[in-house]
């Protein structure tokens, strides 16, 4: 008993043992660090060139990262936050916790992006994803009228969840609360993050899940399963740009800049399509995999960061109000 106890106590007390190389801590969302996500490849590639120890720390879904950083303030250990999105950029800037980056790159985004602090690393369109052999509603209205079940994410902790709220806001404006009202009985549950929702969907707890137009490509390429579809919606699809930024209080500013530059290089961008299943911010030399070009939606909905920030609070309240009844 005693040696085990001592060992456990030692494990609990000692944080990290090897401290010979500088450590860069990158706070990111859960699915980025999973074994099938971009994390492992990115870590190997960056550590090969930086002579440092890259620690990818999972902190829930994208929106939870921001609140975590706000709570930790300047005492945070994070040097870089990777996984906020266009809808959170204005709120993140207002915290004053982020510093401008030094990177310069020509970005392949479907919208103009010029921001000295928040640097895009990938982008994609949100979409409701379902199974090929089941009914496929063509709009939120049609979905609401059907008895299809849907699992979504909490807009307060998850960037897809927030994207959905702003998507409906952008598409329906004043009618958005009524749309949520109508969707209420279709929603099985609300998860804190994308990973939980997608897992529930795959386990069969729901017919549909909020994800991305490129999600079926994952099943097609990685699992050779053509049984999943992204449902094209008449309203158009909301665009998400995922960004990373340097934390102002970092003790590794050069290393953080180096990581952000690496983020737009081939070593990072090349693995994004088939690990994060998003469109890379800089199209890699090999081009895009199968199933990416074919799902580009006819209409793109997008709110610039300031517009998104202005609508975010009221839209989330409308969502909570409608679903809490």
């Amino acid at each position: 008993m005693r040696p085990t106890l001592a060992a456990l106590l030692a494990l609990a007390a000692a944080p990290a043992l090897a401290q010979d190389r500088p450590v860069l801590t990158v706070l990111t969302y859960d699915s980025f660090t999973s074994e099938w996500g971009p994390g492992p490849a990115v870590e190997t590639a960056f550590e090969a060139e930086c002579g440092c120890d890259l620690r990818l720390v999972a902190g829930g879904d994208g929106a939870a990262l921001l609140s975590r950083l706000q709570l930790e303030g300047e005492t945070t250990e994070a040097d870089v936050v990777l996984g906020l999105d266009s809808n959170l950029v204005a709120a993140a800037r207002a915290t004053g916790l982020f510093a401008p980056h030094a990177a310069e790159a020509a970005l392949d985004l479907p919208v103009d992006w010029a921001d000295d602090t928040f640097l895009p690393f990938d982008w994609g369109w949100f979409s409701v994803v379902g199974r090929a052999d089941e009914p496929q509603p063509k709009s939120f209205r049609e979905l609401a009228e059907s008895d299809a079940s849907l699992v979504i994410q909490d807009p307060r902790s998850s960037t897809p969840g927030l994207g959905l709220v702003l998507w409906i806001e952008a598409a329906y404006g004043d009618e958005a609360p009524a749309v949520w009202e109508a969707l209420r009985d279709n929603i099985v549950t609300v998860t804190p993050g994308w990973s939980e929702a997608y897992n529930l969907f795959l386990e069969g707890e729901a017919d549909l899940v909020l994800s991305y137009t490129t999600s079926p490509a994952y099943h097609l390429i990685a699992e050779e399963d053509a049984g999943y579809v992204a449902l094209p919606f008449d309203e158009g699809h909301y665009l998400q740009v995922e960004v990373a930024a340097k934390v102002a209080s970092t003790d590794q500013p050069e290393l953080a800049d180096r990581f952000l530059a690496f983020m737009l290089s081939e070593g990072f961008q090349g693995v994004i399509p088939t690990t994060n299943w998003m469109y890379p911010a800089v199209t890699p030399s090999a081009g895009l995999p199968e199933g990416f070009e074919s799902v580009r939606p006819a209409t793109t909905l997008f709110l610039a960061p300031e517009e998104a920030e202005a609508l975010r609070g009221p839209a989330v309240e409308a969502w909570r109000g409608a679903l809490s009844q």
Partner: protein
Amino acid sequence: MTRTGAPRLPGALAALMVAGLCLGTLVPLLRGAGEGGFGAADWAALRFTLLQAALSALVSVALAVPVARALARRRFPGRGALVTLLGAPFLLPVIVAILGLLALFGRGGLVNDALALLGLPRLSIYGLHGVVLAHVFLNLPLATRLILQGWLDVPAERFRLAATLNAPVWAVIERPMLARIVPGALAAIFALCLTSFSVALILGGGPAATTLELAIYQAIRFEADVAGAAQLALLQYLLCGAAAGLALGLAPGAMGGAGLGRAVERWDAQGRAARTGDALAIGGAALFLLLPLALAALRGVGGLAELPPEVAGAAGRSLLVALGATALTLILALALAMRGGHLALVAGTLPLAASGLVLGTGLLHLLRPHVALATAALPVTALVDALVALPFALRALAPALAEIEARHGRLADSLGLTGLRRLRIVLLPLLRPALGFAGGLAAALSVGNLGAIALFAAEGQATLPLLMARLMGAYRMEAAAGVGLMILVLALGLFWAFDRGGRTRAAA
């Protein structure tokens, strides 16, 4: 209480500390609460909190009445073990219970598999009914013990008299007894369910099934909205304070469960229908309580192979927190028990009004400007766990101390043993069994508790229950079950070690 030679100053200090923590955390909450007022969703959280607690209390008590009656009037092999088992869920980590319920009622659980075989639609455990189901599972044993106590407090002679006079036992004895006991049982379970966090976190389904406790967590972790959380915490504080007061006022005071061992000879319950009914009540309750636990343990054994690497560190942190919380609880409880009187009573009751997340939010407010959250995480968790366990530890220690003082107090006085010498020479050796029991209680509660740690933990700071909640959230049920088994073993093991340690040394 008569004034004795036991030290009284530490008790006053302990009371001051408890009051400072329970009421002091209100000050930053009052100051921190925003002026925003409550939104529709906040009121919905309040409504849901009240609704689920009321339903949970009603269903638990309604089911407990036939079970308690059956236990009160039947003798059968294993009855003693079953009554003892009814005390165990108090030590059972809530999150492990949820996992067991998921194994039975979840999508891939036994019940749904059976329904699918019969061609019936599957049931979902998420939402209000899932939350109530879990609360009934956790509180049915307590309800049964409280009501069983009511039955056994009826003198056996009265049943004999009723039988001789051919009087209706239900109208004359049982209904008046239940009318006296049931309100207290309802209030106690209602109060316990108000602070539900883990159950709503895992089985709640979005804004429609959010308790206040969960809304506090979401305000902090999702929105960094500390002012909004403070507002909710104040509301929760008022609610729990009122409910705890109500429960104490009505409580039958049968937490000890002494004298539940006997069954009363009953002449009115010899018929076949009564026998069958009782057998069904006891069998059904035993199955409902044991099956999920057996399933959780079984899955846990399978899950041990899938344990994530973080588990060793989490176990170490859980153990550190539990030992810290236990030490603090024992010191506070001992000091308060020696002090006695109203002050100890009030200080021992205050933590019941403050839930883990309310205390956590208050401390977060106090500490955040000065200390890194990560630094504060484990000490704050231990502190909050210690306070949560204090009322129960005090209830275990105070009667034992009073008895020792009654027996040996005068001799100790005449020998001039006062202050710390009295504590060392007289009280501590004789108190060992009670200290062991109270310590075991505190340690087991702390190991299984998911509360304040969820507010504070940074990367690599999870305790076992938090790690388990995260694994369940990621749908890694096998690994979660493995962690659950570790929590269960650690909780019961700590309880056993403390309890046993207290008793053997007393005998030596």
